[in-house]
C-alpha cells in the first residue's frame, strides 16, 4: 500500500470583513484511502489580530493515510466563521482545496465563498447578522449539486502543507 503524510499547518485567513475568525476544517478522501494516524478534522482557535488584518491560527495538521488507489485524492475543506464579542457565531465562507499531488512543501491559498440569500435576507444580515448556511456540508467539496446555489466571494485561507509520499514509484505512479 502506498502512503501519504500531510504535515503542515493552517496558517490563517485574510480578506474577510472582520477579523475575529476561526476555521473548521476537515479532510475528505475516497473509499480506497484509510486514515492511519492523526486527526482528519478539527477546529482552530479564535484569533483577534493586533497587527494586520490577517487572522493567524497556526493550526498543525499531521495526518497519515494509506491508499490502494489514486481515486479520491484527499481534499481539505474549510469553513471560516466569525465570533463576535457576545459569543455568537456567523458563517463567513466555505472553501475546498485539493492536497497537492507532488511531494514537497507547498504554500496554498484557498479561496472561499459565502451563500447569497434573497434581498430581504441580505438586508437583515446587514443589521442583525447571520446569513444562509448550507444544510448539507457535502456541497463544500463536491461539485454535483452546486448549480442550485448562488454565492458571493469571501476571503482567502492560507495553508502550508508538506506532502511526503511513500512507495508511489513502486506502483509506477508519476507525480
Amino acid at each position, binding site marked *: 500500500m502506498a502512503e501519504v503524510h500531510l504535515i503542515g499547518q493552517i496558517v490563517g485567513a485574510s480578506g474577510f470583513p472582520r477579523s475575529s475568525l476561526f476555521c473548521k476544517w476537515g479532510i475528505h478522501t475516497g473509499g480506497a484511502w484509510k486514515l492511519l494516524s492523526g486527526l482528519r478534522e478539527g477546529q482552530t482557535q479564535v484569533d483577534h489580530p493586533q497587527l494586520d488584518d490577517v487572522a493567524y491560527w497556526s*493550526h498543525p495538521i499531521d495526518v497519515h493515510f494509506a491508499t490502494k488507489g489514486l481515486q479520491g485524492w484527499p481534499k481539505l475543506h474549510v469553513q471560516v466563521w466569525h465570533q463576535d464579542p457576545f459569543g455568537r457565531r456567523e458563517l463567513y465562507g466555505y472553501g475546498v482545496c485539493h492536497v497537492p499531488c507532488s511531494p*514537497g*512543501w507547498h504554500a496554498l491559498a484557498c479561496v472561499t465563498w459565502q451563500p447569497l440569500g434573497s434581498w430581504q435576507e441580505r438586508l437583515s444580515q446587514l443589521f442583525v447578522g447571520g446569513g444562509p448556511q448550507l444544510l448539507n456540508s457535502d456541497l463544500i467539496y463536491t461539485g454535483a449539486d452546486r448549480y442550485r446555489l448562488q454565492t458571493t466571494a469571501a476571503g482567502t485561507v492560507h495553508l502550508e502543507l508538506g506532502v511526503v509520499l511513500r512507495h508511489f514509484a513502486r506502483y509506477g505512479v508519476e507525480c
Partner: protein
Amino acid sequence: MAAAAAAPAPAPTVFLLMVNGQIESARFPEFDDLYCKYCFVYGPDWAPTTGLEEGISQITSKNRDAQQALVWNFPIDITFKSTNPSGWPQIVVSVYGPDLFGNDVVRGYGAVHVPFIPGSHRRTIPMFVPESTSKLQKITSWLMGRHPEFTDPKVVAQGEGREVTTVRSQGFVTIAFNVVTKDMKKLGYDVSPSDMQNPSIVSLTDGIHNH
C-alpha cells in the same frame, strides 16, 4: 579468485533527522526587552538522539534606530531518530517580557513543523497569546500582572482542544533551519519533487518481505 562478496547492508529501520539553525529575530511592535524559550514537540515514534531539546535565550531590546528588530541569534542543534514521519517534530517558541509593573508576562506562543526537505529554510511564524473573553477579567489581569497563559506551552503544537480558546496575535518570530536527513529514501519516503525523478524504488519483493 573471486573476491568475497561484501555482505549486503541490512535494510535500515530508522531514519535520522538532523536540524540546526537559529531563532533569528522577532518583530513585536508594541513590546520590548523580550526573551524566548524553545522546545520540541514530537510524536511517540520519535526520539531525540543528541542535542538540546529546550533552551532559554538572552533578553534583547530594540535598537534605537528605525529597524525596531529584536535579535536573539539563538542557536538550535538537535538530531532525532524515528521509524515514521507521523508526529514530525515541531518547534514551539514562547516569548516573554516585562509588563508595565515589571512582572514577567508571556508575549506570544508560536509553533512550526521542522521542514522535512533537506536544505536551508527560513520560517516566519505568527505569535499569539491567549485572551480572556470578559472585559473585567482583562482589566483585572492588567492590574495584577497575571495574564492568561498556557500551563504547558506544548499545547500550542497540538490541534485538539483549540476550539475553546480565544487568542490575540501580536508579533512574528523568524527562525532559520538547516535540515539533513539520513535513510529516508532507503525507507521509501519521497520528500521533494526531485526525489520523484530518482525515486526510491525498493523492489516489490523486498518491500513485501519488510512488511
